[in-house]
Structures are given as C-alpha cells and as structure tokens.
C-alpha cells in the first residue's frame, strides 16, 4: 500500500505544535458535544425515579438517621 509519508509527518508535527490543527480541533469539539448530548438525551429509565420516591417515602416514615458514609 502506498502512503504519503511526507504529508503524514507534516500533519503529526503540526498537531504536536498545536499549529494548523485549529479546524480539526473545532471539529473535535463539536463532535464531543454531539456525542455527550446524545448520551444526555437518552430516556431515563423509571427505576431511578422509583428509587428516589422510595428513599423519600422511607425518610418520611422514620426520623433522620446518622449519615452512613462508608468512605
């Protein structure tokens, strides 16, 4: 397979210098946001709401307890 070593070397040098990569960095930033936004917008399973409702109910039926932080 033929490869253009000259161009590869230049790209990698520019990347290391932080020069010439600003357009690529813009694209990376945009992709990162899109990727994360996709994760954030995934529907939340009901089990989390049920869990919090249970915790709240438990607290209403018993006096506040000592914190059980195990760290």
């Amino acid at each position, binding site marked *: 397979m033929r490869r253009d070593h000259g161009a590869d070397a230049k790209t990698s040098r520019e990347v290391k210098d932080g020069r010439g990569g600003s*357009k690529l960095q813009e694209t990376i930033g945009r992709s990162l946001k899109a990727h994360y936004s996709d994760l954030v917008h995934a529907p*939340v399973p009901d089990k989390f709401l049920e869990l919090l409702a249970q915790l709240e109910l438990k607290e209403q039926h018993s006096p506040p307890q000592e914190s059980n932080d195990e760290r």
Partner: protein
Amino acid sequence: MSADTFKDALIAEIPNLRAFAASLSGSVTLADDVVQDTLLRAWSNSDKFQEGTNLRAWLFTILRNTYYSHYRKRAREVQDTDGMYAGRLAVAGDQVSHLELADFRKALAKLPPEQREALTMIGATGLSYEEAAEICGVAIGTIKSRLNRARTKLAELLSAEGLEGTRWESRISEAHNARRSNER
C-alpha cells in the same frame, strides 16, 4: 434544602450523571449501576451538600469515587464501546454526521481514562477547570495538561487514514457537501 427540593434537584441531574458514568466506563449498562449507587450515596450524604454550591460537581465527585472504587475492574470486563451507541445516533444527527460521530467515538474510546475524563468534563459538561480539578483531586495544571494531551491524541487518531483510505475531515466535508446538495 428540603428533601423534596433535593430530590427534584437529583432527578434533574440524572441524565448528566448517566452520560458522565457512560463516558467513564464505556458501558451504558454499567453506567446505570454506577448512577444508582451514586444516587443512594448522595441521598444518605445530603446533609453534607452545601447549598449554593454546584450540585453537579458534588454529584460527579461521588460518582467518580464510586466508579473508581467499585466498578473500574468490572468496566474492563464489560466494556462495550463499539456496540454501546449502535442505533442511538438520532439526536446529534442535525449538527454532526453519523460517520463523523462513529469515528469520533472510536477515537475517544482509545484515550487513557484520565484524559477522556478531563476532556469530557471541560469540553462537554460545562464544568470549570477549578471544578474538574476538585472533582479529580488534582491541580488545575494537571487537568489542563490531560486536556491538551487528549486533544493532541484525538487529532492524531483522527488525522490518520481510516479504513476507507481517506482522512476523517475529508470524509466529513464530503458528507456535508452531499447533504447540502440533497437539500437544494
């Protein structure tokens, strides 16, 4: 903060907690276990949350500690990065092409965890350098250098020729042009 207000604030943060957990672990399934654990810990430690401070940063600290002490080992076993996003590309489709996102995710998965974490916190979650540094328990300079290394590594990975023999950027602009001409 009353229990009710605290509960509502937690509910509002769940989508972000799931996204952050998925970013750390590379697994959507494992992320939900981490989030469930995080919510339980946050609830039992609610008296330690200082009202007026950033709840997201507080929760991310708990989530991160939970993940590294209990789930990191499992994450290595169950990592499903390649398959985890399959069929879930609808939301981002307007701004970024599927191709662009698919390539990006493959490259992101190749970053060392601490670099991926820094990049995610600063580039996507809206946390400040100060908050990210506090969450990770490191100096601000460390976050900055992890972020720089992450960006450099991603640029290297995405500058290399892909399977089709063309670079990421030219494939993206081809996809954009194709879409533009379709719209005409």
